[in-house]
């Protein structure tokens, strides 16, 4: 939550490494061609290691991320205070003040079309979100540890007023 810039940094590093590696493979020794069989012999050996590395990284990434899943079944929310949020074109109906350091569960639904309930922290970063769907209630467990004004923006296209659909609440 609020990790957008961290993701950007990871992406830029991965992209830079990938581009550099691909350019290196394409350009290294370009003026000294080798028979395809020679390249293949080395390439197939590297590919086995590469396959192993990719699978291991994928498995580790999955294992590391599971504890951070935002879902109510993945987070302790017993005894939490429930906060009802109803979205409708083009506003959110919800309390204007919420408590700090208290476990909360937002019960989010919609009166009309699909909306997105996106909570932006006082520093402007996207803090949490869940879809607001008609006929369904999505439960979003959260505990605020920072006081201040949180802005809510719609994060699912909902019609002509989508860009103007926002609200907010104070955490005290």
């Amino acid at each position: 939550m609020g990790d957008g810039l961290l993701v950007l940094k990871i992406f830029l590093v991965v992209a830079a490494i990938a581009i550099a590696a691909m350019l290196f493979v394409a350009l290294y020794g370009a003026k000294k061609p080798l028979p395809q069989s020679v390249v293949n012999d080395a390439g197939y050996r590297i590919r086995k290691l590469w396959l192993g590395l990719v699978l291991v990284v994928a498995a580790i990434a999955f294992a590391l991320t599971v504890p951070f899943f935002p879902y109510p079944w993945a987070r302790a929310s017993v005894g939490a205070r429930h906060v009802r949020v109803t979205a409708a074109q083009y506003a959110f109906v919800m309390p204007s003040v919420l408590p700090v350091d208290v476990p909360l569960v937002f019960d989010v639904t919609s009166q009309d079309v699909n909306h997105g309930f996106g909570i932006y922290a006082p520093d402007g970063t996207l803090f949490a979100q869940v879809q607001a769907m008609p006929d369904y209630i999505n439960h979003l467990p959260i505990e605020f540890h920072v006081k201040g004004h949180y802005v809510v923006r719609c994060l699912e296209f909902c019609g002509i007023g989508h860009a103007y659909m926002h609200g907010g609440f104070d955490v005290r």
Partner: protein
Amino acid sequence: MKIMWTYIVAGLTIFGLMLLVGIGLRASQAGWIPIDTGTFYSLLSLHGVGMITAMAIAGLGLLWYLVDREIHLDERVAMLAFAFFAIGVVVVIVSVVFGHYGALWTMLYPLPFVGTTWPSWATGAWLLGVAAVMLGFMLICAQILGAILRSSGGLGSALGLDYVFGRKAFEAAGKHPPSPQMLAATVVSIDGLIGGASGLLVGIAMIAHWLDPHVVIDPLWAKNLTYQFGHTFANLTMYMAVAGIYVALPICTKRAYHSSIPLVVAWWGTLVFVIIAYFHHLYMDFVQWPAVQYIGEISSYLAAVPVVVVTVFGGLMLIHRSGMKWTLGSMFFFAGMVGWIVGGSAAILDATIPFNVDLHNTLWVPAHFHTYLLEGVFLFILGWVFVSLEQRAEAASNALVRWIVGLGIFGGGALFLISFYVAGAAGVPRRYAVEPAPGPFWAGIATVGALLILVGVLAALVEGIRLARMRAVGSAV
């Protein structure tokens, strides 16, 4: 060749028009030109569905030609499918231009029917237009799959099962595994039929609701089918174009690309993961069945394995120390692989659930799929066009042209895309006619990048026409 060029020219023409629309949209978000909110969403609807359709039409033309080289395909079926595409495109344009439809391609139920500012007929026309495009797509998929199954003797052989599970006997019998491009065609046509069926199913349900509002649809069911169809269709445009790598790169490098057991198994993975990876579009729908959220992350990771371990790795092995000449054709194919990997990396980060909380429906989403489509699929299509033209004329473009095209499409593309990524990481929502800060600043940078892309595309167009007008002295690809 006639079918291939008809499809590719039509696809690239739509691409060019949608590029202009896209530049206008970003310039509007930057505050540089005035576009009212209703028109903005009408144009965004047109841009989104138009670009995917453009890439699909061009990619299908390429794929159809590659299959036709090995198994004769009836041109009349391809032209019938083209008629569906043409009707669909015209009806969608009518819906947008005259009806001012503006619920975007996702048209998540019940959006196109609630709180609309356009007449009901425009929603119906949009649904029917998209359905016509889907029917054309499924017709081509059915034709290709039918031809492959008939010629190979069944699905098992078409997918290389007998080759993988009994290689010695298979080779002793003098048989050959399916070529890489035929594997791509088999997977695209199977997944295309599945994705198309999902789209038609939800489309028919929505048309029923349009005709009789008493017909109600479960919003979660509709969302699942909409994204299964949308994700699969968009994803498959890449795999259509990828078939060109297997044929064109060997020409550029004067090397061979043969089917192997890893390649065959990789395509099995693609067959499965392309269908189920769409679950990552519903990570923020917490009422979704929990198991599929886990499947969404795992399948999104695994979908990348065939790409990075087999196809792109194999493509780089072909290029490495081959003495390949850097023509526009080979340059586009190499850059397309880079774009595929970079866009795929961004997609994997977004498909990681804890990160998705920060990125879902922000500008990161268009960032990754614009990388994938503009610097991946589009470049593979251009690569195929230029390798074909260079082969035919036995000529290549001079260094100045390559630099202009490269700086425009790659340099401008980098500027255009980084603006999406940075704004997305800052939490700027996607699909906002008027964006909160820092959106407008980055929209301005994006507009400059997109204009540079336009310069590169125009230079490529002029160069392509020059090569096409040269006397044919070489052979067809």
